[in-house]
């Protein structure tokens, strides 16, 4: 609490008392350190959430995970730390929205597979792959006629489920170049 003390000149005493409490005078070192610590913590938290999202999004592709580098390794300025924080937050939001949109489509595709299996004749030639439901591999569901043309004419439709990715063939036997027997 500031108390008024009588002083013959008056001026010096008021300045002495009020100067240390004047608004706008801050010790930048103290405040900046706290702000930096807070920003470093926020970056760590956002990076953790982004890492979780990356694992949840796998094996889907087409996401942009990059946040521009700042020419490190070095101590970043307060402004640079803020930009890293903001870009991480933006990347997180954009990718979350993207993943959410894709999950909705994938759910619809899963429902479509169920409907295809129940009523194949209503989904002629429809084909849904693993990539359409956010799963790894080359597995797909394809509505095709039984016995080819005859099945098409008779309306005999069924869902063919592929067995997955082709197996690696290895080197195997190679075709030998033919040598001319003419000598």
């Amino acid at each position, binding site marked *: 609490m500031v108390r008024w003390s009588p002083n013959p000149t008056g001026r010096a005493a008021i300045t002495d008392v009020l100067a240390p409490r004047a608004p706008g005078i801050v010790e930048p070192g103290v405040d900046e350190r706290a702000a930096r610590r807070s920003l470093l913590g926020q970056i760590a938290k956002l990076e953790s959430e982004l890492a979780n999202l990356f694992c949840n999004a796998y094996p889907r592709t087409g996401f942009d995970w990059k946040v521009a580098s700042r020419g*490190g*390794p*070095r101590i970043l300025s307060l402004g640079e730390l803020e930009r890293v924080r903001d870009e991480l937050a933006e990347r997180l939001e954009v990718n979350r929205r993207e993943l959410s949109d894709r999950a909705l489509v994938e759910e619809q595709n899963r429902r479509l597979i169920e409907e295809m299996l129940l009523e194949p004749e209503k989904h002629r030639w429809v084909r849904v792959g693993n990539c359409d439901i956010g799963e790894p591999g080359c597995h797909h569901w394809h509505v095709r006629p039984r016995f080819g043309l005859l099945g098409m004419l008779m309306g005999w439709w069924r869902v063919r489920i592929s067995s997955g990715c082709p197996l690696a063939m290895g080197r195997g036997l190679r075709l030998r170049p033919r040598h001319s027997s003419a000598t």
Partner: protein
Amino acid sequence: MTAELDLRRGWVGEELAAEFPDLGLIHATLSARPGRSPQAVKERLRLMSDRFTGAKAVQVRQQPVPWAYRVFFRQIGIDPDDRRTPPEAAAVERMRAGAFTSRNLLDDALMIATVETGVPLLAYDAERVEGDPGLRLAIVGERLGGDGRDLRGGEIVVADDLRPLAVLFGDTAERHGVHPGTRSVLLGALQVKGVPDVSVEEALWIAAETLAEAD
């Protein structure tokens, strides 16, 4: 088995320590001769490759220790998706090459320790390190290794008492890395916030034991 490792904590420059209070460089010096990896080390790499599946590679960034280095990369201005952290670089290389391929004894030892613990390791020719190694910011006009390329002022470097030995997670000064004539190796492990002492010590022990396999 190796003899008892003399683990020491290197110094950290004042500015760096103020920004990253948990940053540390734990190091140990051991006599080792670089060369080809013995069969036992190659076998260990092969077993490690079998255990390291695609799913594990994807989840590396979620594991606490590799994640801590990812965060540190962000905090020092490196995009870890652009320049990968050592544990993630090892995972990507495993997926790309189909296995952890053997290069030489030192690289294999560092690779095994990094994959097993998630802690990145550094190695220098101990006879060319003057005094105690540590971490600090480069001074404007300073050169890598004393006479190498110009360093940007403020770059984080691994340095000894006289000169910067390497840029952190970057290039090493030409004559200070391990070379075929090296007789003793200075192994260092970088510790950042979130990485427990036990992981750092284990990484150094694994690397030291692997290097001892050649004896």
